[in-house]
């Protein structure tokens, strides 16, 4: 099979693999050396969650063994140590996505909470009866439901930009739907179900021309391409650490300071106040206004270590390698009988969503599991996408920087087996 792929693709893949030293990266991820069902693990479920390198896990241990104290509180030395490592992580993360100042980075549980934060604060304040929020047909449920809940409450309306049969947003429709009634555009940067990379520069420029702020759901972009929120001039950007080789339960919301300043707080509690009396509470400054309660300090430290790790490899090189791997995987999949790719956008990230004539996605996933190949099957929390393509579910292989050509070949062998079992 591999021999039938065009040699330029393979050459470029090997070149990119050398550029980031995939073998060295793999050695940093202990789980990639484990076996499942007696077969070496081939982990292709990275859009669901990515694996974590030793350096990041070590940072968590180091934090708890040598630096653990509550932040922003104690006069004792250890509290200062914890606060320093917490705030220096915030700055690292800010730099990683191109934000100039740390106070524009709000720590959350993940992308979902970050979007809910914007809906419940910015949204409640600015989106009322007759106002519209613009999303696309390819959104994850986490960029649909918070807006529906908001609209239910405030009388706003959710407008949906349709997609075409490749999984590209129809920009003419976007142009038509974007109007003076639009109060926010909230769009996925990279689709988790299709891999589509949306033309976010164009979207932001057009929205800003009408004075409309833009939120990007960056859950699937942060770890796979360089992101520069200042260059994009995006107003809000949300992502999750666990899809970036970092810890679970940790994410960020980037917001322009000018917007965050005038937004009401999200949760009330400790750390988000300057002073409290029963008559009046004065809220804290950014970013603390949005960080009530003791934060996930170890998670923040670990995300800082994750960013350090990614910086040593280089996001440009990671993106180039994953693009080459996607090309190879796309060609390989198309040679398997009965495979139909769902999501063939012009600009795609490392997501291979597909169906097979011989088997239901659930059964594909089951047989692949026998081969140690881990993929996701189902609707990927994007049921409107499934409805658009007229399928109940897809099988999805999603790539990361540590995946290899050999792993794609293992996927293909497993898919050939699916065809044999369900012949």
């Amino acid at each position, binding site marked *: 099979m591999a021999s039938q792929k065009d040699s330029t693709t393979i050459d470029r893949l090997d070149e990119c693999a050398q550029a980031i030293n995939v073998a060295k990266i793999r050695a940093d991820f202990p789980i990639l050396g484990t076996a499942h069902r007696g077969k070496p693990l081939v982990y292709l479920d990275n859009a669901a969650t990515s694996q974590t390198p030793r350096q990041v896990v070590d940072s968590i241990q180091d934090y708890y063994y040598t630096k653990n104290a509550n932040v922003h509180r104690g006069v004792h030395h250890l509290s200062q140590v914890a606060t320093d490592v917490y705030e220096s992580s915030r700055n690292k993360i800010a730099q990683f996505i191109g934000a100039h100042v740390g106070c524009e980075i709000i720590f959350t549980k993940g992308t979902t909470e970050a979007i809910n934060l914007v809906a419940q604060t910015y949204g409640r304040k600015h989106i009322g009866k007759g106002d519209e929020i613009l999303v696309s047909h390819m959104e994850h449920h986490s960029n649909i439901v918070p807006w529906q809940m908001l609209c239910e409450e405030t009388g706003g309306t959710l407008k949906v930009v349709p997609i075409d049969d490749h999984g590209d947003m129809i920009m003419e429709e976007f142009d038509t739907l974007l109007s003076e009634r639009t109060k926010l555009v909230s769009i996925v940067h990279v689709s988790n179900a299709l891999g589509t990379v949306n033309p976010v520069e164009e979207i932001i420029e057009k929205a800003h021309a009408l004075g409309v702020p833009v939120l990007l759901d960056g859950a699937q972009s942060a770890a796979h391409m360089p992101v520069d929120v200042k260059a994009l001039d995006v107003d809000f950007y949300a992502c999750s650490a666990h899809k970036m080789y970092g810890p679970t339960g940790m994410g960020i919301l980037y917001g322009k300071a000018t917007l965050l300043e005038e937004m009401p707080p999200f949760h009330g509690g400790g750390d988000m106040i300057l002073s409290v009396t029963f008559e009046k509470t004065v809220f804290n400054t950014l970013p603390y206004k949005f960080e009530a309660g003791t934060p996930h300090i170890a998670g923040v430290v670990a995300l800082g270590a994750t960013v350090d790790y990614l910086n040593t490899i280089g996001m440009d090189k990671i993106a180039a390698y994953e693009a080459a791997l996607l090309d190879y995987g796309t060609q390989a999949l198309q040679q398997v009988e009965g495979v139909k790719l769902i999501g063939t956008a012009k600009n795609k990230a490392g997501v291979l969503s597909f169906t097979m004539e011989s088997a*239901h996605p659930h059964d594909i996933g089951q047989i692949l599991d026998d081969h140690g190949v881990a993929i996701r099957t189902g609707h990927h929390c994007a049921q409107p996408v499934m409805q658009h393509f007229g399928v109940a579910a897809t099988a999805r292989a999603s790539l990361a920087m540590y995946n290899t050509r050999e792993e794609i070949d293992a996927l293909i062998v497993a898919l050939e087996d699916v065809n044999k079992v*369900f012949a």
Partner: protein
Amino acid sequence: MSDSRALYEQVILDHNKKPRNFKKLEGADHSVEGFNPLCGDHFTVHLNLDGDTLTEITFEGSGCAISKSSASVMTTVLKGKTRAEAEALFEQFHAMITADPDAPVDDEALGKLRVFAGVREFPVRIKCATLAWHALHSALTSDDNAVSTEE
């Protein structure tokens, strides 16, 4: 954990490929839908009763090999059975597929249904194997309400 060859018995693969009684039953006494929203499986079970006896049972819809073959096998074993017999069989079937993988299977009571014993090793597939049965249960016991695996 075991290989999924234990799951995909030849009989199951055969019923998946050539489902029996796979059609709409016009004017059926009962028609009940079953959904599994997580994987999108969706079947409708139709049946006719003569007094207490299932005189006709068919199904339609789509889903994975386990849910489809289970619905198909179900229709073949239930035709001619009474309500009580059908309910008893569902109980035995359910008990079998949720039992410990090493527990003995009552071949005599379960008959053809024993081919689903492999499901015991794959707990996430229990919902697939029981989807049509839950729809049947709804049709026999009461209300003909659609059933969902996630309620």
